[in-house]
């Protein structure tokens, strides 16, 4: 194992009956990085995370945390976990939920410090059942980090959060990573991975499709976007070579193309009054769609 690797799936396969959930998948999370695991529904993200956490045993290959089996409770004392689907005891108050999880760790934060860190200090005495969906996610986030983990697993941490709460979660995650904590993030919000991740892995049908930095992923997609104010109509532009789509929002013409330079040259030649020209590389979302489309079709 790489000495800088904190969690690793090495050629793991997992089947559920006839369904192959993971097919010789290898992933490595490095020390101090934020690693985003992306994939369409049913890609095998949850199975991969479950193997990292020792909830399943792989049928083939191996899963390790800090070089040890995830089944070891001593090694799990170094991780924090936030799961998407866990329903906590509705009868307990927020502080009590965090206090319970803190008791599993050798040197945890106080529940108050964890609540302060995650922006829910005023919710401590509130029964969990009376929280909004977003407040429940914030409570679960506080539970994930109360044990001062070296490695944090976050499954859809900002689902259902308002903009302000999401900003607190993002800021806290960035602070944890800056302090040396490694984070494994699964999310449906690709802008979240784009904003936070050092490295991204895209999986589909249980196999690794691509991995690298966000920029590496974006570079895999040759398509670029052009926007401009012009008298040209989408119908005129759509038949040009290299143009994939052309639409208008009433003010700007928007084009996606595989050869931005050629299209821009032709746009400028066709309209002397063209204004507000912008060219943008593909976003992670487009890279994701393109990468997974072929595999899932």
């Amino acid at each position, binding site marked *: 194992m790489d*000495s*800088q690797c*904190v969690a690793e799936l090495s050629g793991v396969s997992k089947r559920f009956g006839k369904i192959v959930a993971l097919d010789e998948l290898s992933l490595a999370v490095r*020390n101090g990085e934020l690693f985003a695991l992306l994939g369409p529904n049913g890609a095998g993200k949850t199975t991969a995370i*479950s193997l990292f*956490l*020792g*909830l*399943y045993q792989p049928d083939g290959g191996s899963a390790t945390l*800090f*070089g*040890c089996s995830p089944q*070891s*409770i*001593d*090694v*799990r*004392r*170094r*991780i*924090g*976990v936030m*799961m998407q*689907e*866990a*329903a*906590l*005891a509705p*009868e*307990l108050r927020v502080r*009590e939920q965090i*206090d*319970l*999880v803190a*008791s*599993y*760790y*050798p040197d945890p934060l106080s529940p108050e410090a964890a609540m302060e860190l995650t922006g829910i200090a005023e919710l401590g005495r509130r029964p969990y059942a009376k929280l909004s969906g977003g407040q429940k996610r914030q409570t679960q986030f506080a539970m994930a980090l109360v*044990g001062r983990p*070296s490695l944090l*697993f976050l499954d859809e941490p900002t689902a259902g959060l308002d903009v302000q709460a999401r900003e607190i979660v993002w800021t806290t995650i960035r602070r944890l990573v800056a302090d040396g904590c490694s984070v494994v993030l699964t999310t449906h919000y690709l802008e979240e991975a784009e904003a936070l991740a050092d490295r991204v892995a895209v999986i589909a049908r249980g196999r690794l499709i691509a991995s690298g930095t966000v920029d590496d992923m974006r570079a895999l997609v040759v398509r670029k976007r052009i926007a401009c104010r012009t008298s040209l109509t989408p119908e005129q532009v759509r038949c040009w070579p290299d143009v994939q789509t052309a639409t208008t929002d009433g003010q700007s013409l928007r084009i996606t193309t595989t050869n931005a330079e050629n299209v821009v040259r032709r746009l400028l030649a066709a309209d002397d009054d063209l204004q507000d020209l912008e060219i943008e590389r593909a976003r992670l979302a487009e890279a994701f769609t393109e990468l997974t489309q072929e595999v899932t079709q």
Partner: protein
Amino acid sequence: MSPTAVSMTQRRVLGAYATETKYESLRMLRTPAFACPFLLLPAGLYLLFGALLFGDAVAKDPNMPLFMFMGFAVFGVMGPGMFGFGVSLAMEREQGLLRLKRALPMPPAAPLVAKLLMSALFVLLVMATMVAAAPFGHLKMSPAQMLLVSLVNIAGSLPFCALGLFIGTLASAKSAPAFVNLLYLPMIYLSGILIPMPASVKWIALGSPAYHLEQLALASIWAPHEGVPALHAAFLAAVTLVFSVWAVRRLKRPV
């Protein structure tokens, strides 16, 4: 990188068990639908039948006060374990809480130990209410005998916890109350603890832990009882062992 694995002092591990037990008990005490029936019903029904409705008849029959007390005490012992384990474990399994706790460094036995101690606490409270109600049911028992019966009943809640645990690993959250009742209600009526059974069908009671617990409690204070105390204890121990081992094996499967 910091050390690979982190151990915890024995004191903190015990602290984790204590915290789990504290919050498990708080959860149940804060659930009136659970706490009220199990804490108040046994002594309440005992007072209703043993004092209010049939008080005179009970007073005249020398065996009746003890029969009524023992019957309602065993009835009170059965509920917390069967429902506390069965229904709440089924819910925790289905709603992902058990899965989250397994992923976290929770001591593996903590939820079961916490539920067991919660159940023991409830049984202790049930026995306290029964002991307080006993004088109204014309029962004459020494404090030492009361203590002995209470201890036997607290220990005797184990097989009911094991049965509840087994149902909790088997049933969904919605079906668990039905499954528990399917076992709980016939066990009350077919064990002869509340209503004496005709001699022709008394053999049915031999299959019920409630019957064996009542006979063991009677034997513990040298009151007239049926069968051999050691065999009653062995039956209760066997039920506890078989169903808890079976349940723990089921719990080890992925959730």
